């Protein structure tokens, strides 16, 4: 690209065109090409792209000077051979200065173009990278059904087939609903509240088969909740968390309560479960699950949602999520 530019500009500059002149111009162009090529190599090697502008600009000016002078003197052998050499002109200070600064200017503009192109590419790449990172992060944070739950549910259903065929049929429907919403949740970031509530009810229905009289459930749902969108399987995950770490640990069992309430365009979801958070026992897998929930809310609502889990009193753990109204899917 540069070579062509050089030829065109040089051709325009000199009106007379002889074959020797063309050969000389080609030589000149390739000199410039070599010079910029080495300069580029040097830039990468010396990591100039990471320099700040105040450091970079003098560097580029100095290098342009060096390249300009080098190219000017490297021209001489060729012009000698081609018989275009004129000692008086070649060593005339004004001529030297003029041509050298001409080359310098060309090299300087080359640098400006090259750096602009480079930074633009880099910015583009980093943008792409950032969005893909967020996407990957979100999909990793998405709740997934716990395999332990699925297999236990299947085991209960197997036993139920003999004992209570009607109930086992219902259980199969509940399980397939849950599996369906789990598959659907991979595709979308938000789902309607009612959809999620149904999943939670199906989930608790199945866990009740497993835990029998050890699990009691209570719902207290504000009708206005249905206008909200929530991250799929998020409430289900938190309810499951309450069962896994609360009720399943208690020999006598306990209660799970899901309560919602809408205040000033914000949906407040309270999940209470029997049990107690012992500080320090919340590490490893469970701690990660809760951290994921918090992170997921942050990514989806960029700070407008809140999440906390606390011991409400000695017997109950309260999990609270507050979600803002989302107007568009």
């Amino acid at each position, binding site marked *: 690209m540069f070579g062509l530019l050089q030829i065109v500009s040089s051709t325009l500059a000199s009106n007379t065109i002889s074959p020797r002149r063309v050969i000389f111009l080609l030589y000149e162009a390739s000199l410039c090409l070599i010079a910029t090529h080495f300069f580029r190599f040097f830039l990468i090697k010396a990591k100039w792209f990471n320099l700040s502008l105040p450091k970079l600009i003098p560097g580029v000016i100095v290098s342009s000077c060096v390249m300009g002078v080098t190219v000017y003197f490297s021209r001489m052998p060729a012009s000698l051979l081609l018989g275009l050499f004129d000692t008086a002109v070649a060593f005339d200070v004004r001529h030297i200065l003029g041509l050298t600064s001409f080359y310098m200017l060309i090299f300087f503009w080359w640098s400006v173009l090259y750096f602009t192109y480079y930074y633009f590419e880099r910015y583009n790449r980093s943008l792409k990278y950032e969005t893909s990172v967020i996407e990957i992060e979100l999909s990793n944070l998405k709740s997934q059904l716990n395999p332990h739950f699925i297999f236990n549910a299947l085991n209960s259903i197997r036993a139920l087939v003999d004992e209570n065929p009607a109930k086992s049929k219902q259980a199969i429907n509940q399980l397939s609903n849950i599996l369906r919403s789990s598959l659907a949740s991979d595709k979308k970031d938000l789902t309607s509240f009612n959809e999620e509530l149904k999943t939670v009810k199906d989930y608790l229905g199945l866990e009740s088969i497993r835990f029998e009289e050890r699990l009691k459930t209570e719902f207290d749902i504000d009708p206005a909740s249905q206008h909200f969108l929530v991250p799929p399987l998020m409430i289900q995950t938190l309810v499951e968390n309450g069962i896994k770490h609360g009720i399943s*640990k208690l020999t006598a069992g306990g209660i799970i309560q899901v309560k919602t309430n809408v205040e000033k365009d914000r949906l407040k979801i309270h999940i209470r479960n029997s049990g107690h958070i012992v500080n320090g026992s919340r590490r490893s897998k469970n701690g990660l699950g809760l951290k994921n929930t918090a992170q997921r809310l942050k990514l989806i609502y960029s700070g407008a949602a809140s999440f906390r889990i606390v011991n409400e009193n000695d017997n109950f753990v309260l999990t609270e999520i507050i979600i803002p109204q989302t107007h568009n899917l």
Partner: protein
Amino acid sequence: MRALIVDDERLARKELIKLLEDHPSIEVVGEAMNADEANEMVNELNPDLLFLDIQMPGKTGFQLLEELDAVPLVVFTTAYDEFALKAFEVNALDYLLKPIQPERLSETIAKLSEKERAKIAAVRGPEKKLGLNDQVFVKDGDRCWFVSLSNVRMFESDGNYIKVYFDNNRPMIHKSLNALDEKLDERAFFRASRKHIVNLSWVEGIEPWFNGGLMVKLRGGDKVEVSRRQAAKFKDMMSL
């Protein structure tokens, strides 16, 4: 074989009992809902076999086994538990995944019958003391073993723990050496000193030691000092 089923879910127990109906060699003698109940029933009913769930309210299945003195044959049952499955695979313990496949259960029972025959062929220790044919359950971090006492060279007390020497392993169990000593069959195990109990069938050589004590060499190279007080008793036992 007399089996005890330990699972916190009624339906899971019911399903297993149902599946076991096809196997007349297994007689279900009891059902326990948690580890504490199971512990009592094991001592009371002395079953040959445990079907044991791992995740239960209160204590886990592993904790139950650690509490038991002599451990019957054990088949773990679990729905899905990454950590437990890893332990099983590493240690080749027998396990069934819920929902249990009838064919898989048949395989397990065939394997158990073999083990049981080997066990019955050996003479049982008297009055419920732990003899060479009994096995104990040892867990050390993620690794766990059922160890036949015949493979244990010696026990060494270390604070509140006992180091169990077998093969190249020395896992710790949370017990006192005195309590263990009372449970072990004295014809098979000897209390060498305050710190050590040795398995007599592993003794390879005996040398006199300082202060009228003895130095006992075990197969495998371990050396244990027998205190003066115990030395006379030891000589008695080892001589005809």
